[in-house]
């Protein structure tokens, strides 16, 4: 039963489709609930990645996750990019399309980084307008992910959680809640991670991300290069109790181990969700439900 307002289903526990796992997936057809792809890797290519993706999409649900929508940029939206994204989504029957609350470049350039927004009324109005425009072109709602950030602007008048929620309301878009990013940014900026999650309305959340990170002592980098740490698993259980069952995706993008290790890490989320659900079930049993 979906908790979000668009009825997007809980797909279960997936991982990111990465080229180092192509052979394994095609040969072994592993039992995995779903895959998320990095959209830009499959645009403008007629080569192997697209061929593999077509085969994967025949057998598994696929979700598109991008890094170049640049929803907060002052540049005009890139219609060419969005049209290609839309076509890719149709080609693989993408369950939904997501990107990040960020900007990636201005003046026609792309830094290919998820750069932080100043959280002000001006950027809220601007970004909401762009997200609505993007959704009109894609002809579907998108989900925006809370990014890991390493700086905050002095001029921000909103906290990130409230900004994201207000943006989702004004643009009528979904939220991809990255629990690791909440933890990373809470460390980098010194806010309360649970309070952040408390502010996110369940009916806007269409997906959850989990990943490992790199602790540099003075700050944490969102590197997707390791196992999920215990504190983030705790936060995931907390999120589940607040928001309910939502499609969960494990990201591993650097120093990627073999498929079974990444998949096993994703399946830990299932165990954590079941553990988090237990007190609720016991309570229900006690009341004869």
């Amino acid at each position: 039963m979906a908790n979000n307002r668009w009825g997007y289903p809980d797909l279960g526990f997936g991982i990111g489709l990465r080229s180092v796992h192509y052979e394994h997936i095609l040969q072994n057809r592993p039992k995995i609930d779903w895959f998320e792809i990095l959209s830009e890797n499959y645009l403008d290519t007629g080569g192997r990645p697209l061929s593999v993706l077509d085969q994967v999409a025949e057998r598994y649900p696929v979700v598109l996750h991008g890094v170049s929508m640049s929803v907060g940029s002052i540049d005009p939206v890139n219609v060419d990019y969005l049209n290609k994204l839309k076509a890719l989504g149709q080609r693989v029957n993408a369950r939904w399309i997501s990107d990040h609350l960020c900007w990636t470049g201005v003046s026609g350039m792309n830094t290919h980084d998820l750069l932080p927004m100043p959280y002000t009324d001006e950027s809220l109005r601007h970004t909401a307008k762009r997200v609505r425009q993007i959704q009109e072109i894609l002809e579907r709602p998108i989900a925006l992910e809370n990014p890991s950030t390493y700086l905050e602007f002095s001029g921000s008048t909103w906290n990130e959680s409230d900004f994201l929620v207000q943006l989702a309301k004004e643009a009528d878009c979904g939220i991809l809640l990255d629990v690791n990013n909440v933890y990373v940014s809470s460390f980098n900026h010194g806010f309360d991670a649970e309070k952040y999650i408390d502010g996110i309305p369940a009916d806007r959340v269409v997906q959850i991300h989990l990943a490992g990170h790199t602790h540099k002592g003075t700050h944490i980098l969102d590197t997707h290069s390791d196992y999920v740490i215990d504190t983030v698993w705790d936060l995931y259980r907390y999120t589940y109790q607040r928001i309910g069952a939502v499609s969960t995706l494990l990201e591993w993008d650097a120093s990627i181990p073999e498929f079974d290790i990444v998949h096993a890490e994703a399946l830990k989320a299932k165990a954590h969700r079941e553990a988090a659900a237990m007190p609720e079930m016991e309570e229900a049993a006690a009341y004869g439900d």
Partner: protein
Amino acid sequence: MATDLASLQRWMQHCIQQPGECDGEMVNQARELVKPSSTLESEERLDIYRGMYLLRMQEALEVDYPGLAKFLGLDEFMRLVSRYVDLYPSRSYTLNRLGDRLPAFLETISDIRKPEFCRDLARLELLLTQVFDETETPALTAEQIAAVPQDAWEGARLRPIAAFRLAAFDYPVSQYLGAVDEENPYPQIRKRKTWIAAYRRNYQVHRLDLNRQASEILGLLAEGKTLGDALTAVRVPQSRLFQWFRDWVSEGLFHAVELGT
């Protein structure tokens, strides 16, 4: 400093793309516009993004130019990346196109190790990325070849697959790349003319070493010349031509054969 969205984004992008250390003005601006954290000063937080930018560009270019990166070594390759993206920052939604101008950029500089060799190597590696991403077109089958009447071959036009490129080099760059791929000792770099066909078969990118005549024939066929015209222009013994042709067909270099009317 102005703190509207446009000004902030232009400022931050400028800082990120500016090579070198944070200068005094940038530090002052960062302290005005960016909150410090409990562990980092404003400019140190900005520096995280500045450092990641160049690393990301280097990683992307190393994927497309592994041979060049190996040849130059990390430090020299990083310096090259910094100069290149300063002149040609990414303007695409994909990093796959970032390196498209690198061979042309290398034509304009000479203060790197063995610049002529680097230019050839980069040209070859760019071709390979193009072949990797090309549209898939099915290769001519043995049955299609067998169906061509013997007397029609002279006027036949052989169309190569989309994922096919030909190039000539002044250095044996394919041999060097082969050593990099196989993690073998690198061959000595001596000037020697070489000809390469780069193509894709079963979604794998391959390189085929050619001699001058084979390259010329393939080049003429790719231009749309008939087989008869190509053989008139480049004279080779028939037995050698038959062998080449068998090899090229078995490697899947041709997509279609069009018969003259």
